[in-house]
């Protein structure tokens, strides 16, 4: 057997968490370093996996445990595998996880517990992206919820709402989402088992069996999944947890949540809902497009009205996820590529944004935009990071988010015409709120009360360097990202297309 690289990636943070449990709680530096090493090992291995994945062959690679039955009666196997869609998400998780450790470098309130939870959180997120078994997927998904709640309530901060409210809202939304999902998954499992006779929880098995479901069954099953994944990806009108939740959460949680966790929603929509239930997707696609476009415009307008930096980015992430939903609704090669790529791009950008805002908050003790100004003079490196994220957010060409948005626009314009134009107009409002937030925070006359501030340095620079590099490299070499995603999207799209053509003959 080959080296089980996916398992190693998954277990590195777990190992770190286990070691952390035995480290004395006063050893702050050691604690941070262990966390950093744990995430670094994961990151290095996932980079290795990303660049050794054979795109020519495509399909599932680095397969682990596909013949290792776990719960035989339910057909559950501990099946880990990666393809062109999951690898970018896995890499994204690790990029952000690694950066998040450094963004939390100054956490001095119970760092040991903080980092243990962070490691578990990262593991849970990674698990969802490499699970190739629906049961395992759900299991990892539930693993994620627990640390999030504890971290928000203990290490969070609040302004408009209390952090307890924010944590509760975040958790309950996640749980309600997963409840719908659970019902959908159970129904899907029961229905497919009834057809094939042998229980099978693997993605491929379920997808093959689900093709024999009637269009009606597919439609309501898809609706359940759309509710579940939709509230996870903050689809309008199930988005209101996102701004409050991010504002209340500590920096690392905001980074991971906005960066990758909500992408589980998009990932699930593409790789589970769409892949297994193409006829249902076909039915709901126009509605998804409408919700997506409303989300884009509505949240962009919402962001324009904010005065708290984290709320601006919180609304902005809802707006950007609108593009992903719109792209999934297009159901063609260009749109699906764009959806996955945009999740990656937004993840990097949002994580950088939140880490920079985290530093600003740490130093100035405020996130209230009118209380700031002129920080570019006092903390130039922070300003660079902030502007880089801001520019990526408004889709500046040369940064990673432009090409994904462009592909989404092509596909959406092609499929939905006028509706897409409304969504595309979001780029104007985005420019308006992002530049306004940037200008009022960083530029203008410096304030004397911030003269003593220290610019980010040493370990604090890691998020900027890591994520900033990805932003720029991905912007100028989009094929690095797109060739990979395309190799995953092509077979998926072919499968959908076959099913739809068959479905047409019903």
């Amino acid at each position, binding site marked *: 057997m080959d080296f089980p690289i996916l398992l190693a990636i998954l277990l590195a943070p777990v190992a770190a968490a286990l070691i952390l449990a035995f480290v004395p709680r006063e050893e702050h530096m050691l604690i941070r370093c262990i966390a950093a090493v744990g995430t670094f090992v994961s990151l290095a291995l996932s980079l290795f996996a990303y660049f050794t994945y054979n795109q020519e062959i495509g399909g599932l690679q680095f397969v682990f445990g596909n013949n290792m039955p776990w719960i035989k009666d339910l057909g559950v196997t501990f099946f880990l595998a990666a393809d062109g869609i999951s690898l970018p998400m896995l890499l994204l998780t690790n990029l952000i996880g690694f950066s998040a450790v450094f963004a939390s470098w100054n956490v001095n309130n119970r760092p040991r517990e903080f980092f243990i939870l962070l490691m578990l959180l990262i593991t849970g997120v990674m698990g969802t992206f490499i699970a190739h078994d629906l049961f395992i997927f759900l299991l990892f998904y539930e693993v994620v919820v627990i640390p999030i709640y504890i971290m928000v309530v203990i290490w969070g901060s609040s302004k408009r709402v209390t952090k307890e409210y924010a944590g509760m*809202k975040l958790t*309950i939304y996640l749980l309600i989402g997963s409840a719908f999902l659970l019902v959908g998954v159970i129904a899907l499992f029961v229905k497919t088992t009834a057809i094939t006779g042998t229980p099978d929880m693997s993605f491929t098995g379920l997808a093959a069996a689900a093709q024999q479901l009637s269009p009606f069954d597919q439609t309501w099953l898809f609706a359940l999944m759309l509710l579940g994944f939709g509230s996870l990806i903050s689809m309008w*009108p199930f*988005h*209101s*947890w996102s701004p409050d939740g991010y504002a209340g959460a500590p920096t690392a949680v905001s980074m991971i949540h906005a960066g990758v966790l909500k992408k589980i929603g998009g990932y699930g929509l593409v790789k589970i809902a769409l892949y297994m239930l193409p006829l249902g997707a076909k039915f709901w696609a126009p509605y998804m497009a409408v919700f997506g476009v409303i989300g884009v415009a*509505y949240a962009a*307008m*919402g962001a*324009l*009205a*904010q005065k708290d930096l984290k709320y601006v980015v919180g609304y902005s992430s809802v707006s950007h996820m609108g593009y992903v939903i719109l792209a999934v609704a297009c159901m*063609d*090669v*260009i749109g699906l*590529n764009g959806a996955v790529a945009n999740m990656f791009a937004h993840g990097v950008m949002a994580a950088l944004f939140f880490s920079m805002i985290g530093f600003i908050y740490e130093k100035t003790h405020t996130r209230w935009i009118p209380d700031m100004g*002129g920080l*570019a*003079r006092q903390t130039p490196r922070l300003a660079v990071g902030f502007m880089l994220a801001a*520019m990526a957010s*408004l889709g*500046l*060409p*040369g940064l990673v988010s*432009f*090409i994904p948005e*462009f*592909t989404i*626009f*092509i596909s959406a*314009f*092609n499929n939905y015409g006028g509706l897409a*134009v409304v969504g*595309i*107009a979001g*780029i*104007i*409002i985005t*420019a*308006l709120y992002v*530049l*306004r937030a940037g*200008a009022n925070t*960083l*530029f*203008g*006359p*410096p304030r004397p009360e911030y003269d003593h501030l220290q610019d980010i340095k040493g370990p604090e620079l890691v998020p900027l360097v890591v994520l900033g590099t990805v932003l720029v490299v991905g912007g100028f070499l*989009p*094929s690095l990202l*797109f*060739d990979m995603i*395309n190799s995953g*999207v*092509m077979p998926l799209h072919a499968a959908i297309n076959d099913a739809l053509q068959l479905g047409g003959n019903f």
Partner: protein
Amino acid sequence: MLVEFAMQHAWLVPLLPACAFVVIVFLARPWQLLSAIVAVGSMATACFFATLAAIGIFTNHEYVEKPLVYATRWFSLGLPGMPDLRIDVGVQLDPVSAMMLFMVSFIATFIFLYSIGYMKGDPGYSVFFSYLSLFGASMLLLVLSSNLLQMFVAWELVGLCSYLLIGFYTHKISAREAAKKAFVTCRIADFGLLLGLLSLQIVFGTLNLTELAGKIEHFEEFTSFGMLTLIAVLVFIGPIGKSGQFPLHVWLPDAMEGPTPVSALIHAATMVVAGVYLVGRTMFLFHEVPSAMQLVAVTGGFTALFAATIAITQREIKRILAYSTVSQLGYMMLALGVGSLSASMFHLWTHAFFKALMFLGAGSVLTALHHKADVWEMGGLVKKMPITAWTFVIGGLAIAGIPPFAGFWSKDEILVSALNSGHYVLFAMAAFTAFLTAFYMWRMIFLAFFGAENPANHPQESPWTMTVPLLVLSVGACLAGLLGTPWHNVWGEWIRFGEAHEGPVNYGAMLLSIVLAGAGIFLAYTLYLKDAKKKRARKMAEWFGPVYRMLYNKYYIDELYLWFNHALVDGTAKLFYLFDIYVVDGIVNGIGAFARLSGDGLRVFQSGRLQNYVLVFFLGVLAVAVLMAFSGSTTAAGLVLGGVK
């Protein structure tokens, strides 16, 4: 040999300044002089390669019809053999891009050189040079692009650099607002352009310029005429913003907030001409759609006149120049709209020299006067700053259209092509604009450089790094127009769309434009120099009070936009937000509250008190007993035993 190398590796031209950007940011930043040398050196080397490439292009007539194109895949989606979407990046060298490549790198080199002296003592010295290098690189990339998306990337990068440079003095609120305004205004325009590009990609399946040109020639196979018109109009919205055409010109005068070399770079060689260049590059599209051409022409003609009327009343030296740029860009658009790529590019070329010259001259004046910008507070500068003054005069003669200076020939070309294509109204507007241009330019020159000295000023001539660029550019302003005289139009042979046409020389138009320019200068002379003591200008301003105020306040367009932005956009945003917290969140919290309340309600039954449970139990037994008494035994038995018989 070297020429061949430069042509085959033209991508080096944008790459060099891009490398300079990286080197300055990561390595050279702590050493100011080193940063400056890296920036100037890389741009000069780029200029050298650009010159070689231009020589290669302009010695072989084949390239007029068949551009030199080499490209590679940037990314593609779908099957490798038959992609759903494929975007290339590459180089397209033909006379137009070769000319631009040379012009941009040449003028940028001298602006960079000038900045060495101008920026002396600024804390952001190195950063400034890094931004300048990136700016140059983006513009050169834009010029060379073989693909419209690649061009769009460069186009936006140019916008980013202008944002950074306009807002370079980050501590100034005015600079910050101006930068934001420039970016957002261009963004609005780019929205249109982006839609245009998307449509082109969807309809024609490619964004490569040469392929598009081939396909659009017989567009009927792909789409309807109406759709093509729409696409052309959408594409044109981009240049309206970038090239400061009405009604999106508002950002350009505010762009003055940046350091003066930036203004020169933005207004002369890069950024604003990008819009004109884009329309020129997509002439094949506009050519098929006469109504779009008409739109371009009218927008251009109107903008030219409109901006000139504003320029008459302005008081700040750079602001006057800014409006003159808007006006001159209008000329270029007008030329494109009446179908003369040649005249448009010719004016772009000559304008680059004299406008860069004048901006750098203005910068020299501002340094000497410690940034006192009001022309009415200057006067008599010619005595203390002869080089600046006389080179500025050359620029003034060029822009006013006095032969043999550069502007005369190109403006004459535009007037003649407007006339020849039968656009008489536009011709009249353009001619009148020529008169206004001469008037406001010379108003400024007489007020600033001649007349009585202002005793409050103690001007000094600038150092050589600033005067040498002025001298070099003034040579350009004198001679650049001789390439395209109507008697021997070398320019038109090389840079054209379709056939080169050799019409008879139109002496009438030539005479008219000389007379109008002369009249403008003469009027400025009498009002502001000869009879300056009589204060006629002020009296005229008072007579025409409302008109004067309207012009001085730029037709109140900025105020209108400001109102729109603050009242309408922000108001709507506020509404959305309130809706979000009260309605959407209200429902969420409502559901939460419902769950809590129903929990509270149900809690009555889970009191944990034994008596209550016993009571309920007893009542249940009682109910069963009553049921048994009054109905058949089967029902009751079913109830008690759960249906088990």
